[in-house]
Structure formats: structure tokens, C-alpha cells
């Protein structure tokens, strides 16, 4: 590229980068402002004096610690479940022959095309009937497995040579042992992608926890955050502090495993 084109390119990139980051940086500023500063007619870019105590106030005004614990339990359990349950199914579809295999695989993949809203009302009714509203099992069970994880594992298992599996079997390894000692070690990158994606997705999830919980004690962080934002009046400094708390785990995970995220997104683009 010639120099003028290059300069124009950088200008666009910097502008787009600023637009992408500004709302998040401003959120940090907002979280350190006084309530008066958040409400004044000429908003400030940065508070006169950073109000760090806003971050402890959110824990006093709402059971924010409980929200975090709930989010960790729900997102953690679901991620763990995906990593434990999806590969075995992917393995069966990648390396075994059995009746109706193609049909069953299409049925599994088809669940990726079922939008959540169509499941929302029946799941709510089912959970209500089971008495599982406002419980961890109610928040977790509908997401225990997912077709994306199964598909991802199958893609990674297919290229493993069959001879490797047969050699292990001839050595007397049981099927579960073949899976644990030959397949699983090859799956590490796929499982890292799967765990990261599932965790971030579930940590951010809003609609199902909003529907399936009604007591403060069972709210997750995203739903709990809306507590400071009810009716006409919103406590913006506290809302922003909570939003920062919600955002930090994702930001940290992304900072340290950016490659896995890019890889995961690219893989979804290939399905």
C-alpha cells in the first residue's frame, strides 16, 4: 500500500477503535463519579475526584456478592458440563458406525437453529411445574449440553487416525480408556475454546435468568444489575460500577486467551 492509503487506513482504524472502546472507558469513568456528577447537565469525561467507594456501595445496597456467586455457579457448572459431556458425543459421531447416525447427527445439529425464545415459555412452565424456578438447577439444566460443542469436538476428532484407536484396542484398552487416553489429549485446544465461549456466554446471559428467577437471592449479575435501573430513576454511578464488575471477568479472559476467542469465532463461521 502507498503511504496516503496507509495513512487513511490507520485513521479509519483508530477512529473505529475509539468508537469501540469509548463506551466501555466511559463506563469506568461513570462508575467513579458522584451521583450528582452523573446527573448534571454538562456530563464530565472524568470525575473531579474518583469515588472508589462506589464499588463497595454496590455490595451494601444489593446482595452483589450473592449475584456474583450465583453467576459463577451457573456459568461454571454449564461450562464444566459442556467440556465433560460434549466430547464423548462428538467422539461417537466422529468414529463409530451405528444405525441412523446421519439422521441423529442432523437432529443434534438442528438444535442450533432452534431460537431460545421458542423454548422460553415451555421451559418456564416446565420449571414451574417441577418447582425449579428460583433454583440453580432451573438456571442450569436447559443449557447442560450444546450442539456447537459436539460439532466442534467431532471436527477435531475426525482427523485422528483410526489406526491409533485400533492399536490402543489391541493393547486391551477399554472404549472409555481409548477415549480418555487417545482422544481427549488431542482435544485440548477445542475444549479450551469451548470452555471459554460457554463461560462468557453464560456469564453474560440475560433473558433466561430474568425469566427463571424472581428472588434477589437467586439473581445473576446481569439481572441483578437492572436493580439499580428500575422505574424512572437510575442510580447511574452504581449501575456503572456493577457493569464494570460484570465486564471484568470477560475482559481478563479475553486478554489472556484472545487467540482462542478468534479461533472459536472463526470455527462458528465454518459450520
Amino acid at each position, binding site marked *: *500500500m502507498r503511504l496516503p492509503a496507509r495513512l487513511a*487506513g*490507520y485513521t479509519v*482504524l483508530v477512529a473505529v477503535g475509539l468508537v*469501540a*472502546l469509548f*463506551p*466501555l472507558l466511559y*463506563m469506568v469513568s*461513570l462508575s467513579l463519579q458522584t451521583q450528582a456528577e*452523573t446527573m448534571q447537565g454538562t*456530563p464530565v469525561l472524568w470525575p473531579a475526584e474518583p469515588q472508589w467507594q462506589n464499588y463497595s456501595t454496590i455490595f451494601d445496597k444489593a446482595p452483589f456478592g450473592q449475584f456474583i456467586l450465583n453467576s459463577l455457579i451457573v456459568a461454571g457448572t454449564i461450562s464444566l458440563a459442556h467440556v465433560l*459431556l460434549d466430547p*464423548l*458425543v462428538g467422539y*461417537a459421531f466422529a468414529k*463409530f*458406525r451405528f444405525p441412523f*447416525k446421519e439422521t*441423529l447427527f442432523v*437432529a443434534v445439529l438442528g438444535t442450533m*437453529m*432452534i*431460537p431460545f*425464545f*421458542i*423454548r*422460553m*415459555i*415451555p*421451559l*418456564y*412452565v*416446565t420449571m414451574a411445574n417441577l418447582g425449579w424456578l428460583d433454583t440453580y438447577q432451573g438456571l442450569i439444566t436447559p443449557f*447442560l*449440553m450444546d450442539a456447537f460443542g459436539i460439532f466442534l469436538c467431532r471436527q477435531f476428532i475426525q482427523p485422528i487416525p483410526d489406526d491409533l484407536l485400533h492399536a490402543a484396542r489391541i493393547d486391551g484398552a477399554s472404549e472409555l480408556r481409548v477415549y480418555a487416553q487417545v482422544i481427549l489429549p488431542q482435544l485440548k485446544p477445542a475444549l479450551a475454546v469451548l470452555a471459554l465461549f460457554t463461560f462468557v456466554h453464560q*456469564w*453474560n446471559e*440475560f433473558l433466561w435468568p430474568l*425469566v427463571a428467577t424472581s428472588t434477589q437471592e437467586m439473581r445473576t449479575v*446481569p439481572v441483578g*444489575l*437492572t436493580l439499580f*435501573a428500575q422505574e424512572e430513576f437510575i442510580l*447511574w454511578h452504581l*449501575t*456503572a460500577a456493577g*457493569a464494570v464488575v*460484570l*465486564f471484568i471477568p*470477560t*475482559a481478563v479472559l*479475553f486478554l489472556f486467551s*484472545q487467540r482462542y*476467542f*478468534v479461533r472459536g*469465532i472463526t470455527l*462458528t*463461521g*465454518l459450520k
Partner: protein
Amino acid sequence: MTGGLQRRYARTALLFITPALVFFALFFYLPIGNVLATSTMTGVRADQFVGLGNFSRALADPAVRHSFLVTVGFTLGVTVGAVVLGLALALLLNQNLRGRVLFRALLLVPYLTSVVVVGLMWRNILNPNFGILNRLLGSLGLPAQNWLTESPLLTLIGVQLWSQTGYVMVIFLAGLQGIPQMFHEAALIDGAGAWRRFRHVTLPLLAPTTVFVSIMAVIGGLQMFGLPYLITEGGPAGATNLSILHVYRAAFDERNFGYASAMSFLLLLVIVAVTVVQLRAGKKKEVTL
């Protein structure tokens, strides 16, 4: 392989997949049946049979129609915007520029941000009284805007594009990098300029990616709930009352599960129909190497 061994393998495989099949049947396929069943009922306990009454009521309801039109507008705006912006940025980042890995990462951050954070922060930024955006525009000499009252739907489209463009860009970037260099070289030798190479080489070879991206954007748009719920609460005067918000309120505010089920089933039909059309259109445009 002997028949006995083959049967044993088949048994092992079925053992491995049975829990998954049960799970998907119970939590994905059964709910579709349940939604259909509930959609024929009415009352707060959804226990009075009305046949197709909910469907005819939904199809005749002006609020449902309006909400559907708003959803279509939102979806169209987001899809076209995401494809154009995502592709433009991908083309730019596909050039030999320094720091492109950093920029790719940076533009992904909004995509990884929870819809709650996105919604609440933009609600604040766009506020006409104390929002920072109008102040920034003012310091650039631009007039203040009433974002959420004068062009609320367009504003929501903008917020959704802010959060999704990075994702679309990464997918386009992977698609661009999958195009073999020799096609560009061949076109170059034939004397094709940059625009013609883009129009006749890049774009056709990128068609599967474009189809995928637009299907994802359409599904995401038709399913949108968080932004209108958090930023505009569907207003003003229903201008951003997207379908899922309408369904949510019918179900959980008005406790009309039958009616809400019928509406969500209609929306599912729309999503299936649009996806099929998009896949067909994509097939026609696809170029086989």
C-alpha cells in the same frame, strides 16, 4: 470387521450418545411441541382450549403487526449494516498494516460485552439531559440529537452494530484469508483493477461467508430482546417494541401464555422461512472452485 464386533461398536456409540439425545429431545424438541400445545389455550393458567383462536387474534392484532414491522426494520438495518461494515473493516484489516492483530482484538471487545452492559451504558450515553454523546457532538460543533425519541429504531440498530460488527469482521477476515492468492494474481495479470478484482473475484468467492453472516444477523435481529428492554422499554409509542419483547410482556407481564406461545410460534415460522430463502439464494451465488 466381524458382525459381532461391529454390533459391539454400535452399542458403545449408542451408549455414548443416548444421554445427549434424551437431553435434546426434552429441552429442545419437546418445547416446540409444548409451545404449539400451549398456543391453542387461553387464560392465566392456559387451560381453556381456543383452537387456532390465538393465531387469528395475533394475525389481526395491530400491535402485533406493528411490532413485527419494527422487528423487520431492525433486522434489515442490522443485517445490511453488519455485512457492509464488517466486510469493509475486514478488507481494511486484510491489508498489510501494522498492529492489525491488536485492532482485530480491540474490535471484538464490544461483542464479548454482556447485552446488559451494552444496553445500560448506551442508555446513559444517549440520554438527552446528561448523556455524554450530545456533549461530545457539541464540542465537535455538531447539533445535539434526541436519539431515543426522534430516531429510536435507528439508534438501536446503531447500538446493535456497535456490539456485533467486530464479530462479523472476524468471520469475514477468515473468509478473505481462505481465498487462494492465485485468483487475485490471475485477475491482476488479466489487467483487472482493484474494484473489478473485488467485484468479480473477492465477492463471489466470499458468498458462503456472506450468506452465513447474514443468516446469523437475521436470526440475531429477529431474536433481539435485551436492547429494547433495557434502553427504550419498547417506546416511544411502540417504536422499538420488537417482537420478542412483545412476546415476553404478553407471557410474563400479562400472564397470557397461550397468546405469547402463538406469537412466538409465528415468529419461528418467519425465521425458518427467511433462513431457507437465504440458503437458497446463497446456493445460486456460490462459485465452485
